[in-house]
């Protein structure tokens, strides 16, 4: 379970202080998929970075399974599987070597890594390219490699920044099934997206973020009810208060 309370983060820019995240609170429960939905630049990635301990919040608290993300950063990282916005797959290593490298950094022995890799390869459909060097991988192959790498230590909580970004329809469908399987295994899954349909199809709990603030949260039905709109897209526009950065 991931609990976020009143998170704040500001950056110094040439034009002055930019409040990237300005009071975000939500709770992501185990066995559910929580989606952060918002236009580009809404503060989704910054929020997630604070969840996976890469950034320190200026104010507020992140609790992962009851542990504080700032005070117990190493323990928190151990219980997290992270797919960052930048996939960062090593080009000169094969997909398998990429996964093995991260498995070792998590302190796993080679046998466990082999077994987990085999399971992830089947689940994600990576058989064709698992032993190929990542140079020249398609976007989908890169994303799958990065996801497998993030999950090799079998984490309880999974954080995915825009997992379907740049993927074709078939890959997106496959990935959706994979995420639903993670949910069925009782994991706590958080993903961010700027694509409404995506979030509506997958997420049990939707947190709408714009300009660093939570504009509304709830299930898709609750959000429709809240905005008084039948169509979720209209609901989204109404809730964020503008049409900026909206894309399908």
């Amino acid at each position, binding site marked *: 379970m991931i609990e976020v309370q009143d998170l704040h983060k500001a950056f110094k820019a040439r034009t002055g202080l930019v409040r990237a995240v300005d009071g975000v609170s939500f709770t992501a429960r185990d066995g559910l998929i929580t989606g952060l939905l918002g236009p580009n630049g809404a503060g989704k990635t910054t929020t997630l970075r604070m969840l996976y301990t890469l950034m320190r919040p200026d104010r507020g608290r992140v609790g992962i399974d009851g542990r504080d993300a700032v005070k117990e950063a190493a323990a928190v*990282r151990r219980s997290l599987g992270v797919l*960052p916005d930048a*996939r960062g797959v*090593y080009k000169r*290593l094969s997909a398998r070597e990429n996964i093995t490298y991260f498995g070792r*950094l998590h302190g796993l022995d080679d046998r466990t890594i082999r077994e987990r890799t085999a399971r992830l390869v089947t689940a994600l459909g990576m058989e064709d390219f698992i032993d190929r060097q990542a140079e020249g991988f398609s976007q989908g192959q890169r994303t799958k490699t990065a996801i497998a790498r993030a999950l090799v230590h079998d984490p309880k909580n999974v954080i995915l920044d825009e997992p379907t970004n740049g993927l074709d329809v078939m890959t997106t469908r496959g990935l959706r099934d994979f995420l639903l399987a993670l949910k069925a295994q009782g994991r706590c899954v958080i993903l961010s997206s700027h694509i409404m349909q995506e979030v509506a199809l997958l997420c049990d709990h939707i947190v709408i973020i714009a300009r660093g603030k939570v504009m509304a949260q709830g299930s898709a039905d609750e959000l429709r009810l809240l905005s008084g709109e039948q169509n979720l897209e209209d609901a989204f526009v109404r809730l964020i208060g503008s049409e900026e950065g909206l894309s399908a």
Partner: protein
Amino acid sequence: MSTLWTVMRKELLDLFRDRRTLVLALLMGPLLFPLLILGMGSLAESRARTQLESTLELPVIGADHAPNLVAFLDTHNIRAIDPPEDPAAAIREQAYEVILQIPADYPAQWRGSRPAVVEVLYDSSRQDSRIPVSRVENALRIYSRQVATLRLLSRGVDPSLGEAVMPGRRDLSTPEARRGMVLAFLPYLLILSAFLGGAYLVIDITAGERERQSLEPLLATPSSREAIMSGKIAAACAFGMLSLLLILFSFKLSFQFAGSGPFRGVDVSFAAMGRLLAILAPMVLIGTTLLTLIAASVKSVKEAQSYMSVLMLLPIIPTVILLVSPVKSELWMFAVPFLAQNQAILMVLRAETIAPLQWLVYAGAGCGLGLVLWLIAARLYHREKLAISA
């Protein structure tokens, strides 16, 4: 520790997959440096030999005033030729290295047994003129002494009365040390290779990895940042040592096979090579940690690379200082980076022994500086900005 080992192995694997870069980084030095040194050495030697042994064509102004002198010069392989119109301009335009001027009052002075002035025109700022000028001056000195001796004898005076003190020289330098003088620039090449040999790799695995955005997932693993950084530093040090090993081996081979020339007899035994490697090891550590520090503090690879031109100058400083004002080797020097390496390498090449205390100071100062740089770099690795590339 296992993280360090894992990261180190991955970085080396990653590097060794990049064949072309690897070949360029590892083989350029070992192939080029010996060529450079041996080529320059033999060029300088063959030039000196031709200048020393060939007939020197010397323009003489007023050769008619001193036919005896001209004839004497001829016996010393210096042939008088007609002078140019404007001697000063000819020297400046480098048409001649040296011109001899015999004034019109030379015969009168000569006959009166007074010192007869002759002038040697040359440009002291030209390296090239050094040997011809000294040949001419030497010949003039011999001629002067011969004639003076004859004059004294003809007056019934013992010529040795004219020499109150006769300085004799005994050169106590070892033959290895004399050859070592030719090798003044060898320490620079070695120190530079040790200092910046792994630069490409170091910058790539910190600043490059950040730019390729793969540092973010790496730092999101539970491994400590110190361990990850140390693994990267260890990989770069291993690579630097390998590249040094190849360079030293190529020096050894080329010095051994350079049958003649000024490099004969330079100490290139395996023991000496081992000592050189031990001397350069702290330099590899210092270079790698310094570059890691720089790479972790800059925004991009490009910015990190712009530090390189300054860093390349650092090892020159002691070489230049020693060249301009050679100083006695003292213990404190073994604590100053670059100067210490310079001194130690020269001592090995001159087949001198480095005392245990000197080794101790050397290793302590080198590794100490490496440790300090490591600590600063580790602090920089904890900065929030490091992981965030976009």
